[in-house]
């Protein structure tokens, strides 16, 4: 900055001006160079994703018919569909969200707002950050021992949902803490000064202001869970399943049923994986079509996260 601001002593000599111009030109060159490099780096990611997605579209778009969404798997590629897979994905994600989100958000708020700063909380913090990076297969092994056998949940929607909930919780805890930390201290202090309890401060001030950040973390976590295969194969997801779990709502008393929690299941990525490894190219089109569905679901969730953040941020004024 200093070299760009005019200075009397330099203006006095002609060679000084030339030097400065050369200097500025050099810096500008670096500026342009870095901008070009940055653009290249950005486009590598975007173009790769785009190329993959277009490839999937070319291979699979002709399979994206209503029948594809309403048919069970079949030995005939042209009759096979993803009904049991997408219903399974929805049910598993429902369990994951209902169980994982409240626990993870509470944990994040507790760690940030309530927990005393001592070595125990430091230890917990380090562990949570590390857990966010643990490979998903490890959660699968844990879940196989804990949910499937020790707790006797079996190879069910419930076990799968709990496994993925465990997997995404660290991500949500970290996101929650960052969102909560971003709320200015002055707001808390003002509320305390007015005599509010810690819970009142959290409920009425901290939480509303941090919802955009928390929601982003939640949806990024769920978007990760939706594409997960390894832990679900470990706990025994099925590959061929040609029926739907019992519906959670019915027209006869008691109207609500939780039998679906105990049902066997398959999910979209597993169905896709199975089709990819089949002989014959007809099944590969199905796999590509299932891939499109997964990618679109993930993109929709991320778009929803961005929209939510935008809408909620507009309401914040401090």
């Amino acid at each position, binding site marked *: 900055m200093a070299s760009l601001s005019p200075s009397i002593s330099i203006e006095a000599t002609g060679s000084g001006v030339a030097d400065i111009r050369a200097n500025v030109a050099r810096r500008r060159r670096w500026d342009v160079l870095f901008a070009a490099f940055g653009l290249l780096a950005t486009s590598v990611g975007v173009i790769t994703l785009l190329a993959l997605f277009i490839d999937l579209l070319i291979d699979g778009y002709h399979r994206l018919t209503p029948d594809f969404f309403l048919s069970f798997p079949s030995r005939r590629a042209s009759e096979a569909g993803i009904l049991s897979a997408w219903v399974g994905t929805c049910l598993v994600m429902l369990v994951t969200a209902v169980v994982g989100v409240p626990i993870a958000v509470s944990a994040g708020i507790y760690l940030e707002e309530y927990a005393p700063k001592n070595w125990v909380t430091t230890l917990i913090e380090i562990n949570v950050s590390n857990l966010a990076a643990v490979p998903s297969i490890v959660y699968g092994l844990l879940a196989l021992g804990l949910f499937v056998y020790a707790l006797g949940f079996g190879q069910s929607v419930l076990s799968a949902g709990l496994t993925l909930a465990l997997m995404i919780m660290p991500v949500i805890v970290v996101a929650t803490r960052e969102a909560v930390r971003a709320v200015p201290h002055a707001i808390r202090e003002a509320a305390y000064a007015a005599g509010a309890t810690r819970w009142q401060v959290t409920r009425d001030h901290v939480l509303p202001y941090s919802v955009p950040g928390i929601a982003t973390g939640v949806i990024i976590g769920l978007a990760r869970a939706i594409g997960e295969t390894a832990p679900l194969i470990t706990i025994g997801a099925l590959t061929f399943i040609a029926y739907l779990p019992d*519906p959670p709502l019915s027209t006869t008393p008691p109207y609500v049923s939780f039998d679906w929690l105990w049902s066997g299941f398959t999910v979209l990525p597993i169905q896709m994986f199975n089709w990819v490894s089949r002989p014959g190219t007809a099944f590969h089109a199905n796999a590509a079509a299932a891939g499109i569905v997964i990618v679109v679901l993930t993109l929709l969730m991320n778009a929803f996260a961005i929209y*939510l953040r935008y809408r909620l941020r507009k309401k914040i004024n401090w």
Partner: protein
Amino acid sequence: MKFALFGGAAAGALLASQVAFAAPEVKIDGSSTVYPVTEAVAEEFQKAKKGAVRVTVGISGTGGGFKKFCRGETDISNASRPILAQEMEACKNAGIDYIELPVAFDALTVAVSPKNNLISEITVDELKKIWEPAAQGKITNWKQIRPEFPDMKLNLYGAGSDSGTFDYFTEAVVGKAKASRGDYTASEDDNVLVQGISGDPQALGYVPFAYVHENPGKLKPLKVVDPQTGKAVAPSMETVIDGTYQPLSRPIFIYVNRKSADRPEVKEFVEFYLTKGAELAQEVGYTPLPAEAYKVAMDRFAARKTGTAFGGHPEVGMKIMDLLARELKS
């Protein structure tokens, strides 16, 4: 909001479907090699029963399938090789008796690229020389297979070590399951191997016969010389059924839990399998057993004869009817 999103979608989907009731269930797990056949049978069976019976099929691999089977978690186990001694032990300890039923043939094909005009048949000894662990880093040129071959780099493609195909190929060729060189292009996904071999004139590899069948023109299958008869035999449905394509063809099995077999839905499913299995196996690219083999298997199931025809270790190169005539052990 997100709950509403997921909950709404899931609830909507389930309400749209007809109200289900607790239907009897047949649980199957195991080999990915047997999976396409069992899937086809399960699909047809559920159609025939109009959804009154639920059949589920998982893919845990033959070994993983037996683990679940011997814990009593599944009714039927898909197996691309006979039950092994330690698995027999596990089943015995859990008090689980099983009925061993061959359902189709699985043949391995040694293949080169259609661009390769050098070779049309190969002996088991040559295959052994190429694939045994001692060949690692040493046998790297076509000239080393046969002296008359030109000086050309040898690119090898084969199954990954977690696959049943790998186990069977090494057993049949090297003489010991899982004994193989490691410096080759390995994939659990046979489509990758088909692609690799197809475009590479220096390639040699092995894939399940179903993949050759489903990719006509992409691969050139080699005749394999039967070490017992000295005759070179091309892999085909006919040579596999009449037992002349040896040693790279094997029967694949389902194992039925003896107690589950008393449940009407399991009994009906197995009978359906043995009746429609031949036709459906052929449709998904597998080789069916000869008709009389299904009859003998049906008799075995009807008499609930438990045990295995193998002594707890895999064998190579037996004829299917001899196998079915054997005394069963448990």
